């Protein structure tokens, strides 16, 4: 566990970047520091590995004040990932990843084996091991940055806007990858971002900071969305707070109809205006309507139980039928969530 105990940082020019911050980042969880630019996120993060020293207060790592630990020794035990990856351009990818093991005096062969293992862990082709950083895309470099931080298996990981410089599609996949890794590794992660969506997606706990370096609220994402502490937090969360809350509502109990599905070629003949046409394997092909026979309209799918109500609603809005297609992990149709069913689930979500 990382504990901020009334920590203040005053820069030599008088700027108070962090003001009496008290916060805990529990072991094995992702704690996200989020807030507008200049609110002291980076400063807070860098005080943990003593890249910056606190002016007042204490930071404890499992109860031990970091101020008492020699900075290089401290840092070798803490993974650190920054925005532009900061890979060493003169070293091959495998040696970049093995940086900290080399520093710790590991046998060179052992360090490289470990590096290769991590390369695959973060979803990179082992063939990249022999390349240099300039030969990799931004997203790949960022993955290498994560692998490098994990190389010596530190219990703590500090990440400073690691995914902000890559395009949205790559960012999403990097975020998913991090969650997958974290499910396996259970590191204590402190993650800094200015992006509230990222914070909500990744955080077990989200700490919202306001400019001046004070803590506005710390809560799990669901609570944050449903009970913002004040106007600042409410405004920072944005207008679509309600919609985003649906991300945390399960589709488990959603009522599904199975009588709206017809196999290809067997359509028509019922009174229902919309019918979902499926192929012989049960995969969806499109919506058929009595009004326009012979034409298939678009559809959207979600996996009940796995995906959230937000996904289900999104799937419904993708189709003129207004219904969301429920599929299993293999993509086979298991039922249809109608407007009425979604409506009822939304009403329940609003209540509790």
């Amino acid at each position, binding site marked *: 566990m990382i504990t901020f105990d009334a920590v203040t940082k005053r820069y030599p020019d008088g700027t108070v970047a962090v003001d009496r911050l008290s916060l805990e980042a529990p072991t094995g969880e992702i704690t996200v520091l989020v807030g507008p630019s200049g609110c002291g996120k980076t400063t807070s993060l860098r005080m943990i590995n003593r*890249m910056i020293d606190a002016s007042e207060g204490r930071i404890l790592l499992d109860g031990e004040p970091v101020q008492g630990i020699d900075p290089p020794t401290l*840092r070798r*035990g803490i993974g650190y990932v920054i925005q532009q990856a900061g890979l060493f351009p003169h070293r091959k990818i495998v040696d970049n990843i093995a940086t*900290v093991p080399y520093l710790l005096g590991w046998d060179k062969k052992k360090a490289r084996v470990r590096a290769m293992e991590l390369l695959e862990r973060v979803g990179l082709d082992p063939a990249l091991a022999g*390349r240099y950083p*300039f030969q990799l895309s931004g997203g790949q470099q960022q993955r290498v940055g994560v692998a490098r931080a994990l190389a010596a298996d530190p219990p703590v990981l500090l990440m400073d806007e690691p995914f902000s410089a890559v395009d949205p599609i790559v960012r999403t996949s990097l975020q998913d990858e991090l969650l997958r890794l974290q499910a396996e590794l259970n590191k204590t992660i402190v993650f800094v971002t200015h992006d509230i969506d990222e914070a909500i997606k990744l955080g077990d706990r989200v700490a919202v900071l306001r400019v001046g370096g004070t803590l506005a609220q710390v809560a799990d994402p669901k609570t944050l969305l449903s009970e913002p502490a004040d106007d600042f937090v409410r405004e920072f969360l944005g207008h679509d707070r309600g919609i985003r809350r649906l991300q945390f509502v399960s589709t488990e109990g959603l009522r599904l109809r199975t009588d709206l599905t017809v196999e290809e070629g067997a359509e028509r003949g019922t009174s229902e205006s919309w019918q979902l046409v499926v192929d012989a394997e049960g995969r969806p092909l499109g919506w058929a309507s009595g009004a326009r026979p012979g034409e298939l309209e678009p559809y959207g799918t979600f996996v009940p139980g796995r995906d959230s109500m937000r996904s289900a609603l999104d799937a419904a809005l993708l189709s003129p039928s207004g219904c969301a297609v429920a599929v299993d992990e293999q993509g086979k149709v298991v039922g249809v969530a109608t407007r009425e069913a979604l409506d009822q689930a939304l009403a329940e979500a609003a209540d509790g």
Partner: protein
Amino acid sequence: MGWLSAFFSWLGEFFGSPENWSGPGGIPMRLLEHLEFSALALVLAALIAVPLGLVIGHTGRGEVIVVVSANLARALPTLGLLVMFVLLLGAASIWPVIIPLVLLSVPPILVNTYEGIKGVDPELRDAAYGMGLRGGQVLLRVLVPVALPLILLGCRLSAIQVVATTTVAAYTGLGGLGRYVIDGFATKDYASVVGGSVLIVLFALVVQILFTLAQRVTVSPGVSQRLKVR
């Protein structure tokens, strides 16, 4: 095309005469002298300037030394410096010539080494510290390899300057390839002047090639980005 044929006949005369290939005034001996003076001056200059540039660039302390040395290099007349040292120290040893040669080659190496280290991306420096490297490790394992092209550039500039200045140093009675040019003018032996000049040009070219090779061998492909992006 009269001058061209004259040029080649002088060349033929110079390189063709057997007495130019042996003895203390022969081409092998003069080449060796030239190499000796240039190399000695360059190595001494590098031994002073590289560590100094590394430390100043890394710590940011003593930057005034870099500025002063750069300005002095621009202000001091090469030949004047040479003559002054010879007058001060006499012409009995090679040092009156070596010292000014060293003084002249320090600034390009110092300035480029300093700029190279100073100019490394702060994010990279930051990442190196963040991984847990100590100050010296950051310098030697990250900053130097990344700044190496500039450090070598400084050395190459100095080398070219030293080769040229060693030629001029023949005025003070020193050996080396400059002897052919200076003595040739004095005795109106144009074959010697032309032959000596060609040798100096070739010598400088070889130095350039050597530095290019050294760069190829020592600079990481990740820094020079010579590899194709696959």
